């Protein structure tokens, strides 16, 4: 009886992994797109009125993240100048080939919805003088007269786009999960649950990000955080956190229980290679702790200040959870050599095209865009006139 061979990696796996930090960042940012959109849709489609204070901002946030979702991909490509081949000569048996189309569709949808949601404000400013006036005229698509009829039509469109946007968000992010889930060569990725897991964690990250941004923006704007709105977001976060974590753990439980051919190595991956980022960050700090914090923070009649504190901390922890989940999937999956007998190492470098520095920079860009959008559009307005 021969035991298991030890520590051997295929030579091309040595010392480098093919998908680095940028590919961790990419699903993270697209997740925020989908998640923020869901919050806007909860208001526009599911009539969650208490979310009114963040509904418009949620759309702008979703758009801002979406606008930069391709950046990490471009930085990762070894031949970025050929990136558009993915749309010019797509190979549709590839899960990746749909990206250009799904992404463009979603970005357009978000852009149009924003123009419609803010149309009243845009039109009202279109008769300003100079460059400013021109900017708003362009945003009004050149049509600056509004009638009650046209407003009604706008609202129909907003609802329709929100309705289309929900499955589109699911496709956008479920598809990202599928890119990993469809790789049978990799036992850490290959599971039909992957798209669903990605989708749930996307929603989780989007809601958490909105909670955080709402609290921070309110501080800067010196306005009170709407208690009901915050409570509702925390409840949504709590529910989706349970769903996301349950799916993630079920997947793992299933692997462990089946104890298939690769389980011995996968369990080593979890316990040795991903011990900190999985057990501590993703599971304990990012899932268990915010579960309880949110549970307390959701209680009716809680002091608003306490609620804000609990919401902010859990938002932050959940964002860490999702980031580490992306890391554990994307990087973790590549640490195990295809020989299933040895592990790679990876720590992102600071400099370089795919380094930590650039990653941080890329991640800051959506916030800059959000800030800019906030300068030209009233992102925090909750006007009763918008018919909801």
């Amino acid at each position: 009886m021969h035991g298991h061979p030890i520590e051997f990696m295929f030579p091309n796996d040595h010392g480098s992994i093919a998908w680095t930090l940028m590919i961790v960042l990419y699903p993270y940012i697209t997740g925020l797109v989908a998640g923020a959109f869901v919050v806007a849709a909860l208001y526009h489609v599911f009539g969650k009125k208490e979310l009114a204070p963040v509904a418009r901002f949620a759309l702008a946030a979703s758009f801002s993240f979406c606008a930069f979702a391709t950046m990490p991909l471009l930085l990762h490509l070894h031949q970025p100048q050929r990136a558009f081949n993915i749309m010019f000569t797509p190979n549709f048996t590839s899960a990746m080939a749909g990206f250009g189309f799904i992404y463009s569709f979603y970005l357009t949808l978000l852009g149009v919805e924003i123009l419609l949601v803010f149309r009243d404000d845009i039109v009202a400013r279109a008769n300003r003088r100079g460059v400013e006036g021109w900017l708003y005229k362009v945003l009004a698509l050149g049509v600056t007269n509004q009638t009650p009829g046209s407003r009604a039509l706008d609202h129909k469109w907003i609802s329709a786009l929100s309705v289309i946007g929900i499955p589109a968000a699911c496709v956008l992010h479920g598809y990202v999960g599928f890119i990993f889930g469809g790789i049978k060569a990799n036992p850490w990725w290959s599971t039909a649950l992957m798209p669903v897991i990605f989708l749930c964690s996307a929603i989780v990250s989007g809601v958490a990000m909105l909670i955080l941004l709402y609290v921070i923006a309110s501080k800067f704007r010196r306005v009170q955080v709407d208690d009901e709105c915050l409570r509702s977001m925390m409840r949504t976060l709590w529910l989706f956190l349970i769903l996301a974590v349950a799916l993630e753990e079920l997947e793992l439980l299933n692997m462990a229980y089946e104890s298939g051919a690769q389980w011995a190595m996968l369990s080593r991956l979890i316990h040795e290679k991903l011990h900190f980022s999985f057990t501590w960050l993703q599971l304990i700090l990012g899932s268990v702790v915010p579960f309880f914090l949110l549970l307390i923070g959701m209680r009716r009649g809680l002091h608003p200040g306490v609620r804000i504190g609990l919401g902010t901390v859990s938002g932050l922890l959940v964002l860490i959870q999702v980031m580490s989940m992306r890391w554990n999937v994307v990087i973790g999956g590549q640490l195990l050599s295809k020989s299933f007998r040895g592990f790679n190492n990876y720590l992102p470098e600071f400099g370089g095209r795919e380094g930590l520095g650039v990653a941080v920079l890329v991640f800051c860009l959506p916030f800059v865009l959000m800030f800019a959008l906030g300068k030209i559009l009233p992102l925090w307005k909750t006007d009763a006139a918008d018919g909801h």
Partner: protein
Amino acid sequence: MNCTPTGCPSCQPAAVAPASVASPGLAPSSATPADPGRREFVWDAIRTFSFGALTLTALPILVAEADADDDPKAAAPPADPSATVGAAKRKRTVLFGYLVDTTKCIGCGGCMLACKNENAVPDDQFRTWVERYVYYKDGRVEVDTCTSGNFSFDQKPALDPKVVDKAFFVPKLCNHCVETPCIQVCPVGASLMTKDGVVLIDHERCIGCAYCVQACPFGTRFINHKTNTADKCTWCYHRVAKGEKPACVEVCPTGTRIFGDINDPDSDISKVLAVHRIDVLKSYLGTRPKTRYIGLTSEVV
């Protein structure tokens, strides 16, 4: 409902319905008076959405159909060697195959050296390599490679027969699979299969996304540091297209590596395939490798 696809009038409106699926409830007739500019904008948006939706649903089907004909996969024989002779009789086209007889390999590394020289493969990357499996008396199995110097295992300390039961070498290279996950996942079609069954990469098209590197279960693909595109063994297509042998086959002193047309019953490879028990790597993944092996054990992956 029990009616034929064409004959039932009540079905026909349903059959046309999908064209408007992308814009439920958005017909302009229901719109209250809006000015022409706005209406045009609305219609533009409808067109964009419908186009997007149609492309996403229709194209994969069209592409799958186009793929179906004229495909070397159709001619590829199954792993079962007894079937290859029958396939060869049909004598359709050349279909290349590769066989590694691990019982003959002496781990000299000549093939690795030849490959490096022939294909200008960067130092720390490999289109082919040789693995050594060592079975110790205490039950351990160790695997290693020799990826430096002249690639010969002679550079390593000799094994001690007192503690070792058996040891053998297994050369590895691209399997030129029939059901290639690498071609499947390439988003731009830069990975392709020639009519004679060789899997190649178009370095002018490759965007360097490395999806194929992830998808290949055998670790044979890498992003070439020099070209910044995906790379792997081509069975020396530039040579075999001229009737020569791949460089590794040419230099192998023991006849471990055999290459040829498996559609030709008289080729060297067909003759060996016809009489030996043949195996392929990771057969459970269903990629149907065309690089075949003699003498594998369950420890070899």
